[in-house]
């Protein structure tokens, strides 16, 4: 019997004899095993969560000043056109990016799920954008979108069309940021899907081949059902990540024009750091937290219900 198995066996015996003298002391000492995790979890996650909510009930700045105002910050937010616009922008951005990231990521994974050197090289190429910093990515894409001599402007002119000022157009600014983000973030979903595809048992494909299933039939009936957990994971991860859009909007448009590309995190940043209205910013942060939690849990429960069927 291995040492670990022996310990488990000992633990089982300890559970089976609850009345034994000294058991109480023994259980408390077991707490030490999880104490470091609990300490970090409580101080770095639980406490800030409640402290943040408490702060959102105050008018406060960075430098110690604070006054309790109850739910005034939340009432202000409900009447703040810029905040409401930022919430709308954030949802629109998620709609633009998450399905695209999931579908393109899956497509790339399906195309590159093979053992040839070319596929390995292309996997590296498609993942390489993910290692760049947001500064580099936005600099690059600003050059692409620039209406004076930018890549797309030159392309438009080559076809005799007027260049489009993507980042100065209220209808195109957020889609332009979404394209930038998809290019930047596509590596992670692709890798997750690749990992999932490599877990699908070969026997299933052999059985499908014996049944004369075509490529599409195999994809719909074998591949996709086999990776549905990863699909849900990718959607949840991307929803949570894209809710936190900040750097791209900050560097490419500063939230403009006319608030058309200001996401929630940029709103929180501006209110907190530029205006020093920290209580108000944290109240907006609480709402962002709630939205992310609802979205992630909704995804999770939908995925679980589907599995149950």
């Amino acid at each position, binding site marked *: 019997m291995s040492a670990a198995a022996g310990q488990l066996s000992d633990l089982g015996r300890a559970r089976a004899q609850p009345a034994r003298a000294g058991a109480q002391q023994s259980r408390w000492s077991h707490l030490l095993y999880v104490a470091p995790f609990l300490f970090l979890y409580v101080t770095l996650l639980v406490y800030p969560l409640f402290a943040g909510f408490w702060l959102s009930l105050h*008018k*406060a*700045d*960075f*430098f110690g*000043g*604070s*006054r309790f105002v109850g739910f005034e910050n939340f009432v*202000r937010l409900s009447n*703040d*056109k*810029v905040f409401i616009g930022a919430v709308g922008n954030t949802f629109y951005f998620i709609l633009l990016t998450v399905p695209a990231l999931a579908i393109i990521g899956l497509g790339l994974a399906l195309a590159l799920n093979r053992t040839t050197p070319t596929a390995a090289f292309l996997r590296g190429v498609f993942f390489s954008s993910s290692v760049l910093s947001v500064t580099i990515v936005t600099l690059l894409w600003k050059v692409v979108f*620039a*209406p*004076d001599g930018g890549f797309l402007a030159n392309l438009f002119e080559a076809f005799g069309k007027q260049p489009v*000022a993507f*980042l*100065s157009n*209220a209808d195109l600014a957020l889609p332009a940021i979404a394209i930038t983000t998809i290019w930047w973030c596509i590596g992670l979903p692709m890798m997750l899907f690749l990992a999932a595809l490599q877990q699908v048992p070969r026997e299933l494909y052999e059985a499908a081949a014996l049944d004369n299933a075509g490529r599409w039939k195999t994809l719909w009936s074998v591949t996709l059902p086999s990776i549905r957990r990863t699909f849900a994971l990718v959607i949840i991860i991307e929803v949570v990540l894209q809710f936190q859009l900040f750097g791209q909007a900050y560097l*490419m*448009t*500063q*939230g*403009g*024009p*006319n*608030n*058309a590309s200001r996401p929630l995190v940029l709103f929180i*940043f*501006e209110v907190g*750091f*530029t*205006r*020093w*209205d920290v209580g*108000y910013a944290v109240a907006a942060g609480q709402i962002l937290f709630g939205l992310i939690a609802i979205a992630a849990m909704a995804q999770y429960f939908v995925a679980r219900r589907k599995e149950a069927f």
Partner: protein
Amino acid sequence: MRHLLATLLSCVALASCGVRQAPNEIVVQRFFGTCKAEYGNRTDVENAEGECGIMTTLINRFSAENPDVKVRVSPVAWPGYNQLAAQLASGDPPDLVTMHLSAISDYQSRKLLEPLDKDLRAVGVDPNGFTAASLVSVSKQGQIYGLPIDNWAPLWHINMNYFRQAGLVKDGKPILPRSPEELLAHARQFKQATGKPYFVQALANERAAYTRNLYTLLMQQSVDFFADPQQVKLQSPETKQVVAMFRQLYVEDLTTKNQDYAAATNGFINGAGGVYLVGTWMIGDFDAESRKAGRPLTNGYAVMPWPQLYARDATFIDGHAWVMPVRDRTPRQRDAVFRLLKFLADHDFEWSRTGHLPAYKAVIESERFNALPHRSEIAKIATTGMPLPSAVQRQFPVQDIIGEEMAAAITGHKTVDAALADAEHRVNDLLFHLL
């Protein structure tokens, strides 16, 4: 258990200590860009060009002349206040920071800055030698909270070659408009003659420039839009007229469009239009460009303050200063800070070569300053320049909000009335909720 506790405490101690300063080391945090590749260790201030070059060589020379002091320079992206707020909140601010004169009130009112009067006088810097605009901006509640570096204002940088082509030059000087109507007429005349827009403006990803132009033209109409420092009034006929004028320029393609700051600056250098609306800091670069052969600005660059379009000759001004955040310092660090401030005050002329107006009366009245190119044309700003009332707090976010709403109106995303109503509401909401 004791071992565990000791290990934990060691970890906490290790995590809490950042890069510790030596007793003779001071940290100087500044904007003005980075230029290490060109000016890394150079100390020849006289040969340096541009804000970054001159500031870098100045600090390098101070370090060379004061080997007992270690100066650690920390350049920040303009304007760097978010970083500074975080540093102040965490109790780890730098020793000296560049700050706009308009931002000093925010920090001073929260007691985050040290008054400097006594120590400045002790090292031989007399605040009475500051220009009036600088002195009023660094004075709060009877004390001096910064060493002024300069004053700056939005200016008209003019491509005289195009102006000549458009018939807008007389006796070698540009003909400037004297009313909003005349401005539009000149702009149309210019466009017809040259095919280029009259104005080059940074209209994309930019907020401050819109607001500075608006402030200037409201000051020229003697509109006291901040009569109450906690409430702005922007829904006046005068404000609407100014915004409508910029809108008209935009609609008629009399200005460049969709350019950010870098694109507009390059555009002006490459002959994109007649007048670039940008501040004093570009004079040196454009003057250097005008001395190159075969360029759009060759022998054809002039710079003027905003022309007087209304009854009063006025221009909005701001400026830069060195401020000293409150923190613990060793006597040697404190001594080093004031030695550096004295050095920078003594070399304000060198800084004025950037194009900014000197912060010292002796420099602005000196022959060598007035002998610098184009300085005589803009010297009057020392008397016509007007800052916002110093009691107005959060001038930077206020500027951002007004600029954002003006941009929406000028580019046609909102009506002028709606944009000004929104700007007024947003600014007043911000100021009403100050702690």
